[in-house]
């Protein structure tokens, strides 16, 4: 029986952590994820968890602590944002290549610079090639639920990769929402114990982790990592199915909202999905066949499944909440357009880079994007494919 509560996204993640009671929490604060180690420090002080709470001097050290702890056989967690994640950059790759299932609560904040504390996805998108699994949440409930599923995916023997559980800074991390929590007992039962096959401590055989990997061997290990990332797709769906059986809430690689007959659709990540859903209801009432695909799992990227979800749509706007500075669109656009390349009749597609560094995006903004898609369908003219939206300008912009 679920427990009705009202919590911020940070508090929801901290609650999940308390319920799971991990072995090690390596903590260094950074806005807007600071509350997670803050709440957790209170749980430690109150004796509500048995976790070894390690306060370190930097995020490079917090991730290094997690790597050491995970290699020792511990369930290790941390939380960070923005520049903190960037400071981990070197060791993120070490965690992944050493195949250590660490759970990182990423509260998305724009990556400095210019320095700014508000939300976009540039921090975790910057780490998208680091070999970490990445799961994103629309709201506090999803952040909590994703966290409960994280370790079973990450620790699975066919995966053994670290995982980021992402939510939008401030928008979800600090907004208090209604939430359904599960009991401590049910959470512990669902998540289970971590029993790695190999570990530095408590095993009857020696172990070396992360040795120098010379040219004749290193590529094979990277192929193993790539295979593990592919294997994760099945595990993610299996864990989601068990989550639904256990707690009744359904998850997949992405959520399709009013896609059954959609002619125009958005593909986006995170809290903007709520805004888009409100807009879709408004447009549907006017007879516009608008739909939404909200990406939940970005790594591994659900390429074939997304193409299937978009194959009958006439025009798609990918909404990138980060600038990839590729000169031709953001990271979600690159993946989505690549996914649709193999379709016989792919939808017309544009990239709308929006919401950078906390720039607001309201229902009427989303409506402008849908109206633009309708115009593309009507005229057959896609126009510029790489558009910024929400910035002030002294010339007429596309949106």
């Amino acid at each position, binding site marked *: 029986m679920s427990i009705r509560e009202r919590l911020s996204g940070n508090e929801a993640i901290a609650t999940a952590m308390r319920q799971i009671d991990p072995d090690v929490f390596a903590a260094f604060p950074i806005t807007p994820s600071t509350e997670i180690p803050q709440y957790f420090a209170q749980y430690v002080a109150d004796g509500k968890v048995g976790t070894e709470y390690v306060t370190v001097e930097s995020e490079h050290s917090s991730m290094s602590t997690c790597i050491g702890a995970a290699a020792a056989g511990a369930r290790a967690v941390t939380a960070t944002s923005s520049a903190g994640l960037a400071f981990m950059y070197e060791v993120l790759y070490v965690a992944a290549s050493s195949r250590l299932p660490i759970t990182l609560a990423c509260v998305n904040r724009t990556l400095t610079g210019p320095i700014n504390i508000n939300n976009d996805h540039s921090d975790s998108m910057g780490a998208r090639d680091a070999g970490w699994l990445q799961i994103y949440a629309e709201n506090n409930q999803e952040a909590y639920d994703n966290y409960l599923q994280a370790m079973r995916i990450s620790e699975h023997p066919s995966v053994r990769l670290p995982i980021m559980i992402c939510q939008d800074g401030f928008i979800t991390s600090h907004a208090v929402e209604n939430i359904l929590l599960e009991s401590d007992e049910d959470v512990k039962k669902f998540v289970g114990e971590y029993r790695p096959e190999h570990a530095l401590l408590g095993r009857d*055989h020696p172990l*070396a982790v992360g040795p120098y990997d010379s040219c004749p061997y290193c590529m094979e*290990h990277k192929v*193993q990592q790539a295979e*593990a990332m592919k294997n994760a797709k099945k595990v993610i769906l299996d864990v989601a199915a068990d989550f639904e059986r256990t707690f009744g809430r359904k998850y997949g690689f992405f959520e399709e909202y009013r896609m059954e007959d959609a002619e125009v659709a958005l593909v986006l990540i995170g809290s903007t999905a709520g805004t888009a859903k409100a807009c879709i209801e408004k447009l549907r009432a006017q007879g516009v066949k608008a739909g939404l695909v909200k990406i939940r799992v970005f790594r591994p990227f659900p390429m074939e499944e997304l193409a299937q979800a978009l194959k009958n749509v006439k025009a798609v706007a990918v909404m990138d909440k980060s600038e990839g500075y590729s000169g031709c669109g953001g990271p979600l656009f690159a993946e989505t357009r690549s996914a649709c390349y193999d379709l016989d009749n792919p939808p017309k597609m544009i990239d709308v880079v929006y919401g950078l560094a906390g720039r607001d995006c309201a229902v009427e903004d989303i409506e402008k994007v849908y109206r633009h898609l309708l115009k593309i369908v009507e005229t057959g003219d896609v126009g510029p494919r790489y558009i910024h939206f929400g910035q002030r300008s002294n010339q007429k912009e596309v949106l």
Partner: protein
Amino acid sequence: MSYIKAENINEQSPWQEMTPGGEIYEGGTSRLTKTGEWRSNRPVWDPQKCRQCLLCAPFCPDSSIPVKAGKRVDFDYDHCKGCGICWKVCPFEAITMEQEVHQ
């Protein structure tokens, strides 16, 4: 996932038959890998001049001066990198450094 032994992994091993992340499940496996191949200077030991003071052996950073029954024997050239520390610390000039000749 398994306990693949280091001696069963070599430069012909397919990725499926290697350990995840290059993990090693036993000790002393560096003996299986010749790391002295890139040596450019080669220490040469002169047993006539050597007084067996054993100063060189503990200074060697790569454990490449084997000691047997209380006496040093010739260099382990499979692992010696030619750093020259042994030559530097030898009080009796029993070690000389020579240019390595690669075949």
